[in-house]
């Protein structure tokens, strides 16, 4: 199994390390020619969604990736990655891949002083560490999306068929369970 990690900006190396611990090899996507490689899943990391969204288009990755996601490529978006997948962003006009039936709110907990850590319940996994950095949350899900986790009354993880999103950063803690959950999604996809 090989997983592509969008490496335009942000904490992509952290995801690569988590996947390496699970024995999975990764490739970095930085420009269009990188799409010529084959991969079984895609991780969109945390970082700034404005930066990643712009570079996706300007480095000609947008169309190729959107098409693959729509055709069923398993994708896992954390924080900024979740924003890139959302069909609607409450406090921003710009949407990006817009493939997932969720409405998200950017910087929903405020500035860096609002960043926090909690342990909360994740459906099918149990209680896991959750690190929120200037994080978004999911205002609501609709259509085919279902809620996988809530923390302090806000939706922080969801899934819609081949798409998994978290507003927190599983790649910043030692716990591998959300990444393992994503690998299970890929295996059931094949």
């Amino acid at each position, binding site marked *: 199994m090989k997983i592509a990690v969008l490496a335009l900006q942000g904490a992509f190396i952290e995801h690569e390390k988590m996947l390496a611990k699970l024995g999975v090899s990764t490739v970095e996507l930085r420009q269009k020619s990188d799409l010529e490689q084959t991969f079984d899943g895609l991780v969109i990391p945390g970082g*700034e969604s404005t930066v990643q969204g712009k570079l996706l288009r300007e*480095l000609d990755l947008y169309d190729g990736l959107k098409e693959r996601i729509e055709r069923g490529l398993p994708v896992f978006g954390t924080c900024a990655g979740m924003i890139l997948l959302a069909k609607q962003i409450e406090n921003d006009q710009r949407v990006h891949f817009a493939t997932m039936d969720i409405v998200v709110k950017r910087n929903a907990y405020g500035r860096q002083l609002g960043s926090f850590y909690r342990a909360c319940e994740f459906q099918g996994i149990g209680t896991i560490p959750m690190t929120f950095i200037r994080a978004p949350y999911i205002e609501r899900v609709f259509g085919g999306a279902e809620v996988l986790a809530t923390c302090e009354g806000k939706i922080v993880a969801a899934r819609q068929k081949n798409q998994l999103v978290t507003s927190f950063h599983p790649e910043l803690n030692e716990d591998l369970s959300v990444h393992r959950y994503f690998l299970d999604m890929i295996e059931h996809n094949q």
Partner: protein
Amino acid sequence: MSNRYELNKNLAQMLKGGVIMDVTTPEQAKIAEAAGACAVMALERIPADIRAAGGVSRMSDPKMIKGIQQAVSIPVMAKCRIGHFAEAQILQAIEIDYIDESEVLSPADDKYHIDKTKFDVPFVCGAKDLGEALRRINEGASMIRTKGEPGTGDVVQAVRHMRMMQAEIRRIGSMSEDELFDAAKQLQVPYELVQYVHENKKLPVVNFAAGGVATPADAALMMQLGAEGVFVGSGIFKSGNPEKRAAAIVKAVTNYRDAELLAELSEDLGEAMVGINEQEIALLMAERGK
């Protein structure tokens, strides 16, 4: 270390692979955000103008910083003087995302840096070598940048500082364990930090390049030398075409090894900032705060 410190180091991780741009107005901040900045540094005068104006340079007017916070959705940083913890308290009160305890401003204390462990907001500090970097981390900095020589458009000092830091990291990494105690003594830092560098072959926090970066090639050079991202100060808004240059530097940081793309990005950017050579400057800001 506290939970808050971890969260603050985590924010720096999210900035990696990105470009942090100096801006002086909400309009410039919007241009920077649209060009792909992952954060902006709000300040009244960019380093080149601070250099030209001379005199004492202080923290910016909080009203001006708040205007920039209103204008953009990306993180907003601001500078306080070295050792000026009251300025830092003020910046924390307006919920700044990152404080740069910066040698670009006139130092307020020629002996002590701010005790950054007393703050909830994160700090980034400049360093010329590994000792300075680890001393700032020991004081609570959650991100490091090279000092470079701000406001010059001359990248030589940033290169020198980054090479020095990387060479010292390699040296510590190759030491036998019983040599680490003496290394800690020489660097004037706690043993635990030296041990971390020995085991991980990197700083315990994110390390950006700063000071004198003016072109996509400069940014790519710093990334290839081991920077995890780049600060661009005077280089953008002192150039002929800020939008285009800013966007080109952002792309250069993402694809810093692709020479063909870098060639394309370097084309037709208009005039770069004029710049001053290292030998021509009277004031070496990098010598402030060690």
